[in-house]
């Protein structure tokens, strides 16, 4: 599914965000990416859907060679993924419903859009906020719409960047149950998180990134960052 070989990322302003990352994430794996603020988790994730291009190294995602991907093919890569962005990235002029439906319209889906969007909104508990614009939603509600959008078109890989950062523990566990269910159906889940409770309770593989390097990669790992 996802394969990285000695990947480096230098940003134009000189920051070296990743320094030689090699990792293999198989089909229907469930992976937590943890690490301190500014360690490189988001960069690691952005490379997977080609928001950023690697400076060095090879990346394969769902059979696409990220470094050599033609611009025309990028939408195909992204449609095979479901991405929850750290800053949500909702379209401000579209309602909650329309934002979720957008991910289906993009792939040319015509039938059952209504049913599938309702279903996704139901997973995140926001059916009654369907017709509200993002700026009129609370922070956690916006985050849940972003999650619904990532799930709606049954992608083979879910990539989520701190999907519970703005959610209370109860709601967070609701979301984790959805992720678990989808993972059980064979979907790969990659999730950057700071939530020690979740990582230590719902035990999965943990990749710890520190200073742009993989510091730890454990199956059924723990958060391991104590105060």
């Amino acid at each position: 599914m996802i394969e990285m070989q000695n990947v480096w990322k230098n940003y134009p302003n000189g920051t070296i965000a990743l320094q030689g990352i090699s990792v293999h994430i198989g089909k229907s794996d469930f992976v937590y990416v943890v690490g301190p603020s500014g360690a490189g988790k988001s960069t690691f994730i952005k490379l997977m859907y080609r928001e950023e291009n690697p400076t060095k190294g090879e990346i394969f995602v769902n059979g696409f060679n990220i470094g050599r991907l033609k611009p025309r093919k990028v939408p195909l890569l992204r449609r095979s993924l479901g991405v929850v962005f750290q800053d949500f990235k909702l379209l401000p002029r579209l309602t909650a419903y329309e934002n979720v439906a957008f991910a289906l319209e993009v792939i040319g889906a015509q039938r059952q859009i209504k049913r599938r969007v309702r279903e996704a909104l139901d997973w995140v508990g926001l059916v009654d906020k369907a017709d509200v614009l993002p700026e009129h939603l609370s922070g956690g509600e916006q985050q849940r719409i972003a999650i619904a959008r990532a799930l709606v078109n049954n992608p083979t890989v879910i990539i989520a960047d701190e999907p519970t950062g703005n959610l209370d523990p109860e709601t967070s566990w609701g979301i984790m149950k959805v992720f678990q269910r989808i993972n059980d159906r064979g979907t790969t889940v990659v999730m950057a998180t700071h939530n020690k409770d979740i990582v230590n309770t719902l035990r999965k593989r943990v990749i710890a990134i520190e200073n742009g390097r993989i510091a730890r990669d454990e199956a059924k790992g723990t958060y391991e960052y104590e105060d």
Partner: protein
Amino acid sequence: MMGRHLREGVKNLIRNSWMSVASVGAVAITLLILGAALLIAFNAQQMSQYVAGQLQVNVYLKQQVTKAQAQQIVGEVQNMPGIRSVQYVSKEEGFKQLEQMIGTQYHDVLGGLSQANTLPDKLIVKAANPQDTVTVAKEIQAVPGVDKVDSGQQVVNRLLAFLSVLRNIGLAFVLGLLVTAMFLISNTIKITIFSRRREIEIMKLVGATNWFIRWPFLTEAMLIGFIGAAIPFAILTLGYRSLYVHVGGVFPILTFPLLPVSAVAIKLFGVMLLIGLFVGIWGGIMSIRKFLRV
């Protein structure tokens, strides 16, 4: 799929109402000025044709030619190719016209001149095509009984030169306005799209293809262009119609005929719609391009 894009375009236009009004306003007022300039230019061109149509060849007959012979010559000239009209002016009529032409300033000076002064008989000939005036004059020279032919070559040339200078200034101005209009419209579309670059980036990140993103923007740009062209077109056509009716189809002072509303409206509509629509779309495509590289 086209249905979705059209729907989205209209929706954006409405939800984004403040910006839409600003864009439509900019396009409309630009095209209003351009349209007004075009109206004047069309009429000026028509005027120059009208003036050129007034060009004439004066044919002076020999003193010994009788009235009967003169009529024969008129017939002969009339049958030559490329002639539109021939008008016979006798000695006596000629004197009256001279008096009038000399006008107020020197009027009393002619008082001393007797009508007995022998003016020759004259034919006023117009060529079917004003440009052929000089050629026609040469051919008439060969007709027997004709003394002198005056095609007013100097006057013709001076007049045509003057009209061409006027036309060039007008053309330069209209072209300048045209370029301005195109620049301003594509600029407005550019700024509109710039203010929504984040949305374009988000769509790209969610897996939209470039054309999927472009279409709603282009329908929106097209609508802006269309409305922005329709408003000044309506204003100008109605304004021109009421002016036309008010002055009775003839421009006062200069007393030359205005172009009828229908003749002007079609050209105006064509030019304005073309600019509004296609510059809008072109500006849209060019400026979206920058933000699709995500």
